[in-house]
């Protein structure tokens, strides 16, 4: 199994999805958490433990990269690969909503 294939088989959870959205611009640690909360109107509250684990995981998958601009604050930014995965995921979810609307139009008695 090629490395590419293994990466694509990785399940993109909601939390990972939001982190990728947050890192379309260069951000760090707590700012990412605040941004996600604002973006989702408080629906998605990310815990620091989850955020840290996922930042390390996404860096390993090369969907985000760590930029060391300052010796103290480590910032992150999405990579090209990450952008591609994100677009793919947005399209997938849009399709799901379309399918749901089709099914629901046929009526729930």
């Amino acid at each position, binding site marked *: 199994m090629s490395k590419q294939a293994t990466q694509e088989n990785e399940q993109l*959870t909601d939390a990972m999805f939001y982190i990728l959205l947050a890192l379309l611009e260069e951000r760090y640690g707590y700012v990412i958490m605040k941004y996600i909360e604002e973006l989702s109107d408080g629906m998605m509250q990310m*815990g*620091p433990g989850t955020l840290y684990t996922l930042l390390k*995981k996404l860096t390993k998958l090369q969907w985000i990269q760590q930029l060391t601009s300052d010796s103290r*604050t480590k910032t992150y930014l999405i990579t090209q690969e990450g952008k591609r995965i994100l677009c793919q995921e947005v399209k997938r979810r849009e399709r799901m909503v379309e399918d749901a609307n089709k099914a629901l139009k046929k009526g729930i008695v």
Partner: protein
Amino acid sequence: MKEKRKTKQILCGGLAFCGEEEMEMLHAYALDGWIFRKFSGLSYVLYKEEPQDLIFSYDLNKVKKEDAQEYLDLFAAAGWEQITCNSSSTWFFMAKQGTPPLHSDHATLSEEYTGIGKTAKYLLLVLAFVSLFSFFLIKQAAIFMYLCAFGCGCIGGLFMLLIGTQFRKHKRKLCITMWNFQRSMCYCLGSLFIMLSMPFLSDIVPSLHILWRFLRLGAWMLFIATLFSMYWRYPLYRDHKEQYLFKK
């Protein structure tokens, strides 16, 4: 003259088994004025202070030294203060009541437990090999019988740990909250067993009599230490907070 603060020590029952219950217990203690300030590797150290409404939590991420500052800054910004602990893979935190929890995504949380599972599986394999090897050599010398029994005992313990972590992955929990008192009793009986079997061992393999002497001395020390710790900790067992934990 500096006054020494009153402290209380509570043995940790194993985070993989009853981590959440123990965090709730620490919260109850904090409301009573006993604040968890340090983890000594085996037990929670609580200091007597003013009652505070604090909640506690832990994280099992392996954090490298260079990432530690980033890690702690993230938690501090979210309202979680670090509690002293000499480990780079287990981290304890405290926060005011109402602070959002450390983990919001269950999938990532269960992944942390797989780390423990890997070590346990490796150890299990080694011990299984040792036990099997000793089993075939039982007729040669009694030491192999003991090695086999010891190996099997460890395997049993590790197996429980593996099952516990598997349960955690599937959102369930294996609760083996043994009373600290009962655990001390086990150590006590175990060391007694070792001591009583010394004469038989020295009969069967007399050439190693110096080894048996040392083992016997060690077993005696363990026995006395366990008796002492049972006596010392008995008031803690009657503490109604721990009874609250087991009523659930």
